[in-house]
């Protein structure tokens, strides 16, 4: 870079020098030559005129002296142009000289001069000639000649001086060009280095160039620009970080499609929603990625109408997620980019809740209606005369009582659930020894188990730490679970109750049966209200469908939890985890 600039400046200097020297050389050279020739000519002429004052004879006699004085070759011609005397013996040629231009001129005009090449002396000469007169007649001519070599010598000397000065200019221009280019390029190179670093994304600080000329101004401008640029970059980065944080932490799923309609970006929320169902989304079109008609229809609609379209859709094969998608254009700087943003909102939970609510109302109505229908039926029969028959009436009344009792139980269960949910159920937590409670509970269950010839086994160690529980609720929990175990265990089976300390300051109570078991898929749904694995059977057995739901709620209120393991046809184990009394469990702190 520097070299090139240096060369440019140097070449400019050199060109100027060459031009100057050339013009001076050319103009001065020709001037000097003309001047000298003129001077020699007039000098010779002066000598010739003096000589011409003398008569022919005199001149002839003193040719040698004249030549010495005039420092010239002297030729005397007669009227016909024949050489009479000649100082230069080599040039003594015969024949008429009348044809020579200087002689012709002298004959016609009275004096003549010429600069020409002398064939006799083989040199360029200046000739001056005058006619020698005797009265009006020309009796001869005197011609003086001097070689031009003198002139040439003078010009050569002048050229030499010119060359010398040219060399001096050359050397000094190299030096000046070097210095000047260095002075010019150093700040430019600094700026170049500075901007290069800037381009690479480094922060180069401030450009230090002290100069009041244009370069200094430029440096100042650059500094100002860099400052502005960095401020803007910082602002943009902050903005970007904010958007990115919102983008990645948003619960809603976001997909951004590029101008070709291919997925460009997927946020974490999206992955959380779709989970393991789809992989490698980036680079595919939504159709390739999801094969979803609903989504594709929404996209087509959006593309043809250009309007943001909200649309509900289902993604995934098994255990699908319900999503609500809205499509909007991403307004970028370049309109041709034409990016599209798809925002997905997870409706799965909402839909499930909606469904549960609908189911709940339907279930409650159904559960209440069944015993009510029976009661009304029997009452009607009684009214129609069955009351007269004492035996039948008695039987009917006991049936009515049984159904009323079931209704009552149902309402009580519902109340318990709604109270726990509302937080209006009051618990009096205390330190409870499990063995005591277990005994009274087993006493209640024993009777029912005995009818079905089910063996009840209990193994509760005496040194079990007391648990933090509400006595009444604890027995309710245990009764509910044990009742289920007995209900779903065929005759001759075994139901066992055991307890042991568990890790994390907990006591685990396990209720295991050898019953019919529960299919794996159904286990997560067991805590739902009115959820029954086998609907007809459970109702036959007198369940309300609320038992485990109540247990689940009560366990949550105890800051404990319930786990269910089961194998179809082999039996079910329900594990209840209670916190140990006096030892605040991790979650009780909150």
């Amino acid at each position, binding site marked *: 870079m520097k070299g090139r600039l240096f060369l440019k400046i140097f070449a400019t200097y050199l060109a100027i020098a060459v031009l100057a020297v050339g013009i001076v050389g050319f103009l001065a050279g020709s001037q000097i030559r003309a001047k000298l020739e003129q001077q020699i000519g007039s000098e010779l002429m002066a000598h010739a005129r003096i000589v011409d004052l003398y008569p022919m004879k005199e001149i002839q006699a003193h040719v040698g002296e004249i030549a010495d004085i005039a420092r010239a070759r002297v030729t005397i011609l007669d009227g016909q142009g024949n050489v009479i005397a000649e100082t230069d013996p080599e040039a003594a040629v015969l024949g008429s000289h009348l044809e020579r231009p200087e002689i012709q001129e002298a004959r016609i005009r009275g004096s003549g001069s010429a600069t020409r090449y002398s064939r006799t002396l083989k040199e360029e000469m200046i000739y001056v000639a005058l006619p020698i007169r005797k009265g009006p007649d020309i009796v001869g001519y005197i011609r003086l000649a001097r070689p031009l070599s003198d002139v040439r010598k003078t010009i050569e000397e002048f050229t030499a001086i010119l060359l010398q000065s040219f060399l001096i200019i050359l050397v000094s221009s190299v030096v000046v060009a070097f210095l000047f280019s260095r002075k010019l390029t150093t700040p430019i190179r600094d700026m170049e280095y500075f901007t290069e670093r800037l381009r690479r994304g480094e922060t180069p600080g401030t450009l230090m160039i002290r100069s009041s000329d244009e370069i200094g101004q430029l440096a100042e401008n650059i500094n100002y620009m860099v400052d502005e640029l960095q401020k803007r970059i910082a602002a943009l980065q902050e903005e970007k970080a904010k958007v990115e944080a919102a983008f990645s932490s948003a619960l809603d799923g976001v997909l951004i499609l590029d101008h*070709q309609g291919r997925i460009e970006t997927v946020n974490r929320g999206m992955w959380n929603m779709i989970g393991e169902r789809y992989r490698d989304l980036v680079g595919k079109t939504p159709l390739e990625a999801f*094969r979803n008609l609903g989504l594709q229809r929404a996209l087509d609609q959006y593309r043809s109408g250009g309007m943001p379209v909200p649309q509900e859709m289902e993604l995934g094969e098994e255990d699908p997620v319900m999503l609500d998608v809205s499509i909007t254009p991403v307004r970028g700087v370049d309109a041709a980019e034409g990016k599209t943003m798809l925002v997905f909102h997870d409706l799965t939970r909402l839909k499930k809740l909606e469904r549960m609510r609908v189911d709940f109302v339907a279930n409650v109505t159904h559960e209440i209606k069944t015993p009510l229908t029976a009661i009304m039926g029997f009452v009607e029969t009684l009214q129609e005369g069955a009351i007269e028959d004492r035996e039948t009436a008695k039987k009917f009344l006991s049936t009515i009582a049984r159904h009323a009792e079931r209704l009552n139980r149902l309402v009580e269960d519902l109340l318990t659930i709604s109270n726990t949910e509302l937080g209006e159920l009051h618990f009096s937590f205390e330190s409870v020894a499990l063995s005591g409670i277990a005994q009274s509970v087993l006493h209640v269950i024993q009777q029912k188990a005995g009818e079905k010839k089910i063996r009840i086994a209990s193994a509760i160690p005496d040194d079990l730490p007391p648990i933090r529980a509400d006595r009444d609720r604890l027995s309710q929990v245990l009764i509910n679970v044990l009742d289920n175990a007995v209900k779903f265990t065929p005759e001759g089976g075994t139901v066992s109750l055991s307890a042991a300390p568990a890790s994390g300051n907990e006591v685990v109570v396990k209720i295991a049966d050898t019953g019919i078991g529960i299919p794996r898929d159904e286990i997560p749904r067991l805590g739902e209200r009115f959820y029954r694995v086998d609907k007809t059977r459970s109702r036959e057995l007198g369940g309300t469908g609320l038992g485990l739901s109540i247990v689940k709620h009560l366990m949550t209120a105890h800051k404990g939890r319930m786990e269910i393991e089961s194998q179809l046809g082999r039996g079910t184990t329900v594990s209840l985890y209670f916190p140990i009394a006096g030892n605040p469990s991790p979650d009780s702190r909150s």
Partner: protein
Amino acid sequence: MEDTRRTITHYERELQEIKQNLLYLGALAEKAIANVTASLLDRNSELARQVIEGDAEIDKLDTVIEEQCIRLMALRQPIARDLRFITTAIKINGHLERIGDMAVNIAEKVLQLNEVPQLKPYIDLPRMAEIAREMIRGSLDAFVREECELANRIRRMDAEIDTLNEQIFRELLTFMLEDARTIHRALLIMQVSKNLERIADHAKGMADMVVYMVTGINVRHQWPGDPDDICQAKREES
């Protein structure tokens, strides 16, 4: 990003469009099978009617894709791989259209079945439908990604469908032998099963074409040796 946009030619965009349309058609066919299965399991005749009506959309798209393919062939004169792509697209298009028709066939049978009490719980039929859908989806995946191995895996899945079909046949046969009153229902179920089996055959045909598209080798009828060797050889070649 900038560069890819410039290099995408009109021709490539047309190929892409055919691809996307085929995927959409595939999704329609898949949905038809899913709906018809649901209509059978939930005894939902409304859904079955929807499938029958929805076939019009499949037929329409089928014509559109075929036209696109023919246009492309006429105007661009594709060669080598592109030509194989187009021929494969035409064939897959045909297969998908037929699959749509079969979904309609099943829907018609389901409408009849829903009029009478259920003969038995359906266990193998939804399984067959599930595999058939997986085969369609897999074939299209293989087509889009040009994956020879995936296509081969789909081709092998057909055997499972055949087994299930035979199993259903034997089971229904026992029903019919025991009680003549079940014959009508059993025959309807058998036709459902047969149609599902045919759907799987079409899906396999699609996978065959994908192998052809990627390797240039026709494996449709009988191919000696392991088909995966073809994919392997092709990969080493390129």
